Structures are given as C-alpha cells and as structure tokens.
C-alpha cells in the first residue's frame, strides 16, 4: 500500500494544476492582508457599523488575529472550490488521460488503487488547509501584530491574546476535517465521470445548494438540515466561542466523518464495478 500511495503522491504533486490552489492562496492572502493593513481600521469599522450604536469599543481590536479569523470565512466557498480542483481530478483525470488502461490492468485490486487515491486526496486537503492557516496567521501577525481577538458573529466574543493560538490550531484542524468531507464528495463525483470539470461543478453545486438550505429558517428545511454536511462544516467556528461546546464539536466531527466515509464507499462501489471504456 505504501508504494501505491507514494506513486499517487508523485502523480498528484508533480502535476502543475495541484499547485494552482496554493498559488491562488499565495497571491490572495498577502494581497488581502496588506490591503487591510494599509486601509487600517476601515474594514473593522465597516464590520462593526451596526454595533457602534450600542457598544463603545476601546483599544485596537484590528490586529493580526482579527484578520486571520476573517480570512477563515473563505472556508465556505473559495477553499472548497480550490480543493475540488484536485479531488475531482483524482479518478476522472485518469479517465480523461486514458491512463486507467495503464494502471488497472495490473495485479493490484481496484480497492487498493482507489484507497491510495483517497489517502492522497486527504493528504492534499489537509496540507492545503494548513497552508492557508499557516500563511494567513503568520503573515497577519507579522503585519499587524497580536492582541485580543474580537469575534463578531451573532454575539460578540472577546478572547484574550493568551487564549487565541490554540483556538486557531484547533479551528484549522477541524476545518481540515470539514474540507475532507467536501473533497470526498468531489472524489465521489469523480468516480463516475470521465472529465474533471463535472466533479468540480457538481461539488460546488452541492455546496451552494446545501449552504442555501442550511441558512433558510424554515420548518420544512429544519427536518432536512441534520442530513446536510453544511450543517456541521462550521465546526471550526465553535473554537472561537468563549466556552467551546466540545459535545457539539464531536457530534459535528462524527457527522462530517460519516459523510467522508460514505462518499468514499459510494465511490468505491462505483469504481470496482466500472467498465473502463476510455
């Protein structure tokens, strides 16, 4: 299995398109953070416009932690899109290039082949999310310095600077876990098409539709929401509550895990029975 994973790693990480996502992050994150530094508190005042009437904000909450936290919002749409570029290509890419005929005539089971591909998809996803975390936090702290973290959501939470670093670490680990479930969905779509564009479009379609349903306050959709992964994918946000609701966190982790495993099993069922006609 080690050899198979190694050869899949070679295939994935020697391909230029694998680095497209990294390149985009490498351009966008510094750009956003430098602009935020230049524009100073304008972004913060825009965010807190509604609160200014009820609260008096003292000190400077506009620091590196605040910017790094804001960048995490890209985990809703932009990062899933970039991840699906690679995850959606894992199986469909072989069909497109005709290389299924090279690899599936060997004395190795299709189960082992697809497992190796899935392991590489997970490795890529985790590396990508951690790269986003490392770059955004590191650069934001370098540009804007540290301090207390001001979290504005349905409520306002202020976290002491000494209490923030571990929360970011936990949040990015949980975000990686969530992104694996999206990668698994792209991987599943990749198993039954012969072109990588299909899985990318389908994954983003699912992500956007599920996000819309998750955000519509309706009795009808409330019954459906427990079955949507988007209900749990915000698990990283829970790390920025004053008291982290660990029970909820583990529940979300389990639900996202079930989605990942379920998607992989569906992909496996299709893949082992698939007639290779490409």
């Amino acid at each position: 299995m080690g050899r198979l994973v190694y050869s899949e790693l070679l295939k994935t990480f020697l391909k230029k398109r694998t680095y497209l996502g990294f390149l985009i992050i490498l351009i966008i994150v510094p750009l956003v953070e430098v602009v935020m530094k230049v524009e100073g508190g304008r972004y913060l005042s825009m965010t807190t416009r509604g609160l200014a009437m009820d609260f008096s904000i003292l000190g400077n909450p506009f620091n590196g932690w605040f910017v790094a936290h804001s960048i995490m919002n890209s985990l809703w749409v932009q990062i899933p899109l970039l991840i699906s570029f690679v995850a959606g290509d894992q199986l469909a890419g072989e069909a497109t290039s005709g290389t299924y005929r090279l690899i599936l005539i060997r004395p190795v089971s299709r189960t082992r082949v697809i497992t190796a591909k899935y392991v590489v998809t997970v490795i890529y996803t985790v590396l990508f999310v951690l790269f986003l975390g490392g770059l955004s936090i590191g650069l934001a702290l370098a540009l804007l310095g540290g301090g207390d973290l001001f979290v504005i959501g349905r409520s306002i939470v202020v976290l002491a600077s000494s209490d923030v670093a571990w929360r970011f670490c936990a949040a990015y680990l949980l975000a990686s876990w969530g992104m694996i479930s999206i990668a698994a969905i792209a991987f599943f779509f990749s198993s039954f098409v012969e072109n990588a564009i299909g899985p990318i479009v389908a994954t983003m379609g699912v992500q956007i539709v599920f996000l819309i349903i998750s955000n519509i306050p309706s009795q009808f959709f409330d019954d459906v929401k427990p079955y949507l992964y988007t209900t749990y994918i915000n698990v990283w946000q829970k790390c920025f509550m004053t008291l982290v609701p660990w029970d909820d966190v583990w529940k979300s982790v389990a639900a996202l895990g079930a989605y990942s495993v379920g998607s992989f099993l569906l992909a496996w069922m299709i893949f082992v029975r698939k007639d290779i006609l490409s």
Partner: protein
Amino acid sequence: MHRPSGAEPVLQTKDLGKRYGDRWAVRGLNLQVHRGDVFGFLGPNGAGKSTTIRMVLSLIAPTSGEVELFGRSLNLHRTESLRSVGGIVEKPDFYLYLSAVRNLEIVGSLIGGVARQRILEVLDLVGLGDRGRDLVKTYSHGMKQRLGIAQALLGDPELVILDEPTNGLDPQGMKEIRELIVHLARDRRKTVFLSSHLLNEVEMVANRMAILAKGELVAQGEVEELLKSGGQYVFVTGEPGTRIRSVLRGLPLSVTKFEEKEGGFEIWMDQGDIPSLNAQLVRRGVRVASIVPRRSLEEYFLSITEPQER
C-alpha cells in the same frame, strides 16, 4: 514465423461475450493461446478485438462466459492471474507531465515494485534508453508506442498482450516492432497475443491466429494451416480480355480453374508458374498490366472486413 504450439493454454476464453444495450460487441468467443505462441488476433476495426482484450485484462466485465489465464479463472483469481501478464490496450497513454522513467516507476509500484535497473533495461530494449528522462509529452507517437511495449514488459510477464502495436507507425517503425515481437517470442520465450487488422503483419510474426468479425470468431488455428486451406491464386489484369481467356484455356501449366472477376482474372495455379504464365501472355500479344499472387485467406479476410468498413 513457425513455432510449435505447446499444449498448455496460457489464455483461454470460454463463451466470452460482452453486450452493450442490445448490441453484442463480442459473442460466444472461444480462444486458446498456448505457451510460446505468437498469436495473431485479426479483425477489422470495430470487430471486437479491443473489447476482448479489455475483458482479458479485466478492464471490463464480461456479460457472459469467462477468461482463464494460466488455468485460473480471471474472475476468481484476478490478482494472481494478472501477475504474469503485461499489455497495451489500444493507444498507449501515459502521464505526459512525467518522464518515461517516472511513468515506469508508477507502473512498477502497481506490480509490487521494480528495480531502477529493470526500468533502464526495458527502455534500452525498446530503444528509448537515451530518452528515459525526457517528459513523455515530448515523445512522438512511435516513441509512445515503444514506451507502451516497455511498460508491458516491465514485470517480465509470461504473456504479453499487444493491441495494434504498430498503429500509426511509419514502415520502419512497424518493422522494428515486428522484430521486437519476434525477439520476445524467440529469445525471451514470451507468449505474445498480437491484435491487428493487418493480415500480412500477423502472417509475418504469428504461428497461430484467430479472425474475429462482428464480434464472433470466424477462424482459429495454425497460420500455415489456415493459409494452406485457403489455397493460392494469381490475379491478372491486362488487355485484351478475350485473348487472356483464350490463352488460359490452352495453357499447358498448373492452372486448375480461372474466373473473370473485377476487371481481371483469378487464376488458380501453382505460383511457381507465374513467370511462364507471364511469358505466354506476352508471347500471345496480351498487354499485361499486373500479375498479383494472392491467397484465399486474404480474400476471405477482406470479404469479412470490407462490407463492415464501408
């Protein structure tokens, strides 16, 4: 090429069939390839050759029947059966953004690991020794074909399955591949299953063959026997036709029968008498345009293939 066929079948198909919707791509196929054979698998484009090869290499599942490799059912013992098989299916495709060596490393990882020395050896064997580090995207079609053969040989398989390996090659490239096939069979003791739509290619290298048409087997056996059973004739064109006919009627040669056909004459005779036939025709004032020796198997093959290719 004449090689004795061993008794032991390394590849056998039993009533093998594949159906897509209402259409049978391959039906009731019973093939037997023996150890040491260079087995020609002939048929026009669309006859079902590649579908058969895909079933033999487990890329597609048969609708009916089964494949046996080395006496084991492919369905029940896929991994063990494929351990001694290497192949190319249709055109050889590779990871174009990787070098030939990297591509072969990847194939090697799927057959349990292969030493770097072995990779260099197979590249040398197919004449790509000095281009192994180049990206495959810089390769010509002929080089990709040769790399396809290299990957098929990487695991030192007993049975090598080559699907139209000379497709798209120039005459020199075709000759080199044919020589390589003969070398594999004669010097390296490989059994070669060679799919082709070119009868002469199969004739030059194979000792046994099968002909597939519209997904069904129409002939199978020793190449020599099949060619002999068909008989030989010459096809003569020239003017005037009436004089050719009269010459043939009184010819003191080995002519057993003749027939006017497609603007010429099919003359069933010993092909050693062709120079005498030509001399007689010219002496009697026939302007001979062509005298072409033909075998009935070729005609038979063409009669199968032509209607489908139209």
